[in-house]
């Protein structure tokens, strides 16, 4: 659907008839004076303390590319190339901490620099200046919006990807020994994360051939009834795969929630803390933990 908005924006950007020759006059003016105007723009970017995360050389290099793309968008009336460039640029500068106001700021600065050069050129012919500005302003505004929207969309995409990555990291399924998985849960659990956690655990049980799982929720301060119910479903689903779940670290508040929603606690295997949970898991798996000295002493001969 993003594609659709891009297409419709690209369509609506074709210039109105009659403004064609004015635009080509405008474009050749911007091309002829490109070196001077680009330098002026870069100077004003620095002056306004924008793009502080980038060096002078980088700013000038990007300014050159943006300028050329900008003039090309004015000339052809299509925004696709500029859009692609804006996306690419955003991808490169977002990791360096460039903010939305900076991107919008530099595009608006370029618009102003170019407008001023038009004032200077046509100051003797007020009527022509007006007509040139009539052709220039809507196109320039559309370009500014395209670049800003492209940046924001890319930023949102980056944030989504990062959230996804953090979620993956925050629900690690750890294999501590053969057939035993530990799932330490820390932080806030919303329904989305709860569901992701369950899916990860169920797949983990299958791929690791786990027989016992310890879910430790010491790091979870509270959960609402929806998430508490989900925890119960997770325990039941794990059992269907053939794995036993031990829940450890239930806070008094969460215990209260579980009791309030009417969970049959006889179905839930709970142990006070993670240490106890692992011991119980080892017992279920048939391991017996003894100190090395005892083990040696117990050996015959």
């Amino acid at each position, binding site marked *: 659907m993003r594609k659709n908005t891009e297409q419709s924006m690209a369509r609506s950007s074709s210039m109105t008839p009659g403004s064609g020759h004015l635009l080509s006059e405008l474009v050749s003016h911007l091309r002829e004076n490109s070196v001077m105007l680009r330098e002026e723009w870069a100077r004003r970017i620095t002056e306004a303390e924008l793009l502080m995360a980038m060096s002078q050389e980088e700013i000038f290099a990007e300014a050159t590319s943006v300028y050329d793309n900008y003039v090309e968008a004015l000339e052809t009336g299509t925004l696709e190339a500029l859009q692609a460039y804006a996306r690419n640029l955003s991808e490169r500068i977002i990791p360096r901490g460039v903010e939305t106001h900076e991107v919008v700021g530099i595009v608006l600065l370029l618009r102003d620099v170019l407008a001023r050069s038009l004032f200077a050129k046509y100051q003797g012919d007020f009527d022509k200046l007006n007509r040139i500005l009539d052709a220039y302003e809507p196109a320039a505004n559309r370009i500014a919006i395209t670049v800003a929207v492209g940046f924001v969309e890319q930023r949102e995409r980056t944030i989504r990807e990062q959230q996804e990555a953090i979620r993956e990291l925050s629900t690690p399924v750890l294999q501590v020994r053969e057939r035993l998985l530990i799932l330490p849960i820390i932080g806030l659990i919303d329904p989305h994360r709860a569901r992701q956690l369950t899916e990860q655990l169920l797949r983990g049980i299958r791929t690791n051939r786990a027989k016992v799982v310890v879910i430790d929720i010491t790091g979870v301060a509270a959960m609402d009834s929806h998430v508490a119910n989900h925890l119960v479903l997770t325990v039941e689903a794990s059992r269907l*795969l053939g794995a036993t779940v031990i829940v450890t670290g239930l806070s008094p508040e969460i215990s209260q929630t579980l009791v309030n929603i009417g969970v049959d606690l006889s179905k839930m295997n709970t142990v006070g803390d993670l240490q106890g949970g692992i011991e119980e898991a080892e017992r279920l798996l048939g391991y017996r933990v003894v100190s090395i000295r005892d083990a040696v002493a117990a050996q015959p001969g």
Partner: protein
Amino acid sequence: MQVPILKQGPYLIASIQSALSDADLMQLRDALVRKVSTFRSRGVIVDVTVLDVMDSFASRTLNDLVHMIRLRGADTVIVGIQPEVAFAMVQLGLTMEGVATALDLEEGLEFLDQKLKHKGTGPRDG
């Protein structure tokens, strides 16, 4: 679609090969109950690895199967329930309480062996 039932020592193994209609499932249930008597089997494994959906009818039929076989003195273990299928089942409230489950055929056999060993040394609980 008939489900092949294999006799392996004291056990019967039913490996479901494709999606089953209700009639197929009931046929499987009846065939297993019959064969447990014929072969005096001590345990049954139903492998559902290929099932990509277990709805209320399927779980209920398997549940009935387990209980009918228990009345004949044998244990049943359901193996191979897929993670996604298990997730859908519990959302439907189909937790199959009282039915033994295991990860796969190997685990299922081990479960039955344990049960049999237990029964051999202690009193029969069937």
